[in-house]
């Protein structure tokens, strides 16, 4: 009887702690989410009532050349940009964690780019660096190489954005650092005594113990990368150019919804994205059993 009581008690306690989130979900979450799902099956221009159109939006999407293009752009951004950014973040975090003099200063400095987000200053500077007469080309011309216009060539524009993401590695880096700090120092010391080199220590101690944090950063960065929106404004002013080479999925969604007054279509776009993200996330979760180690 005592253990039963305990179990019942836990149910109640669990829901008690979850209560704020549940309230938020039921009062402020479920209606917008449900509405957007409903709207995806309608033609809705925001000002007049929505008209049911069934699966028309979805059918049109799969035939939409621009959509396929935005998918391609987003996939490149997600699967190149996110891992690259995380690798940098982890590498720098590990470096900084070594107890270097002035650690605090460096950590703060490395975080500065993330504070800028998608601001106008970054847009101007990115052009100054990657533009036709930009710093990169000036640097290359010293070696006699004539660089292309990185920021406005359809082939290279997206990569300037990937570089932007990598440059803003501050946020995942901070999280990695917090995770690295949780690893007890005596583990490293003991391993050093046992004769393990730094690299072996990294792979056998550090990585496994921070794997829950790596997992978190991986999932969140991928979810965020799929929904990236502001970087596109930096390069193309929101047009997704040149030639749609920076047309992120959510940028196309925004254009369809707000500029072309096709909110039904945009809602359908959103739900397709959700399913894609959920699928990739589920895969990562499934794989986590193999490489994520919890001390539980």
């Amino acid at each position, binding site marked *: 009887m005592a253990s039963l009581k305990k179990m019942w008690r836990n149910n109640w306690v669990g829901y008690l702690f979850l209560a704020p989130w549940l309230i938020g979900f039921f009062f402020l979450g479920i209606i917008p989410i449900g509405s957007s799902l409903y709207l995806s099956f309608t033609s809705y221009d925001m000002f007049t009532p929505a008209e049911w159109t069934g699966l028309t939006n979805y059918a049109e999407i799969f035939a939409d050349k621009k959509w396929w293009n935005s998918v391609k752009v987003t996939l490149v951004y997600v699967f190149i940009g996110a891992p690259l950014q995380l690798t940098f973040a982890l590498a720098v975090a590990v470096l900084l964690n070594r107890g270097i003099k002035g650690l605090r200063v460096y950590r703060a400095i490395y975080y500065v780019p993330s504070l800028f987000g998608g601001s106008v200053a970054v847009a101007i500077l990115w052009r100054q660096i990657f533009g036709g007469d930009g710093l990169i080309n000036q640097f290359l011309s010293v070696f006699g190489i004539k660089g292309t216009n990185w920021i406005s060539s359809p082939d290279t524009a997206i990569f300037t954005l990937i570089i932007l993401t990598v440059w803003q590695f501050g946020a995942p880096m901070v999280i990695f650092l917090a995770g690295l700090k949780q690893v007890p120092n005596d583990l490293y010391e003991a391993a050093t005594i046992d004769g393990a080199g730094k690299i072996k220590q990294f792979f056998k101690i550090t990585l496994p113990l921070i794997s829950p944090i790596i997992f978190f950063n991986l999932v969140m960065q991928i979810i965020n990368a799929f929904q990236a929106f502001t970087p596109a404004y930096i390069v193309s002013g*929101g047009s997704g150019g040149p030639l749609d080479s920076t047309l992120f999925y959510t940028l196309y969604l925004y254009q369809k919804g707000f500029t072309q007054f096709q909110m039904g279509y945009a809602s359908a776009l959103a739900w397709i994205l959700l399913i894609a993200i959920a699928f990739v996330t589920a895969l990562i979760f499934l794989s986590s059993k193999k490489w994520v180690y919890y001390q539980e």
Partner: protein
Amino acid sequence: MKMKALLFGLFLLTLAFGLTACSGGSENTSSDTKDEKGSNSSEKVEIRFSWWGDTGRNEVYNAIIDKFEEKHPNITVKREFGGWGDYWDKLATQIAGGNAPDVVSMHQSYVSDYARRGALLQLDDAVKNGEIDLSDFPESAVDAGKVDDKIVMIAKGITMPGWAYNTALFDELGVEYPEMDWTWDDFAAKLAELDAAIDSDDQFASPDNGGGQLEPSFRHYLRQLGKDTFTEDGKLGFEKEDLVSWWTMWDDFRKKGYIPDAETGAEYANVPLEQNMFVTGKVALTQIPANQLSLYQEQFDSGELRMVRMPVMPDGENSEYIGAAFLSITEKSKHPKEAAMFIDYFVNAKEAWELFKVNQGPPASTDGSEFVKQFLEPADQRAVSFIQETLPYAHPAPVPPQGVGEIEQAFADNYDAIAFGQVSVEEAAEAFMETAKSIVE
């Protein structure tokens, strides 16, 4: 534990700081569309007015509104404003959410979508019975505010497009200034002349005006041919051949090096005014609306900026039509009478003209545009003269149909494909016509 207490204390401090600092009316100002419905002039009424603009414009508008409130002590005007892009995002959301301001600023590129979806109030009655007095407006200015023959917006400042050049630069290059009524042949010749005089690989005679948006350049071209971008009943107003000849002309210019290559053009496509190709000296000419002349003039240390008409066709028609910024009343406004009073004041009152001057172009009223001249800097005076000179050429220009956003996108996309060398002019034009027809027919 000590740390936690410290942190918590910090928050309380911040909280206290924030609370005391914004004790002047922060959390509980409720929205006001639940005011009394009466239009009785002795009852207190509150209306909301929103506009897009920069800090300069905000000062001007606030001053105008203050004067209005002085004159009508029973009406308070709540002000909302934002930058251009943000303004439209917010307005769409407000209208969709049923919470739009009473008076909104409106523009030709959006009015079709808003008016045809019933978001704007029809103002014909208000104009007819003099609530909004347009008796001094030129016909073309009133027409510019019509959609489907109903007045839905009132022009607050009008402008006309043209080509601008810097006298100092032309003097330096040894090229003669363009004529007011130059033709397309003159235009091409001028580009060639400039190209010959310009010594560097990095500078060009003119920016690329073949793509981008349907208006104003392409639309002017079509109107000279006696056609238009769209017909009154919302169908396409031109044929594929017209598009082909237009795009071929610009493609030609690109091949000859008169206009920037695609990459350079793309790089400068979204830069702020201070950095654009004309200001930085990358191109010798630029196509702008006249009301921006003074903005550009400020960027130059030497020379005078002057304007000439859009190049004309020798046997063609006049293509001009008024561009403007407008004021509308939203359909769900609970105080249409007061809103109308406000609009009337804004466009007709002398005090308003004096403050507005040429903020978005001179006032539409003929008296108004004459009146403000005395307050203007030379560049603005030139702009107003230009507008007054070209105004008589203007004739009605139907507002584009719903769904024009998609067509604009197709226009820009297909032209870019040509510019980047991916398709031929024929193919691009064909693709565009197909898309456009599927949307409007």
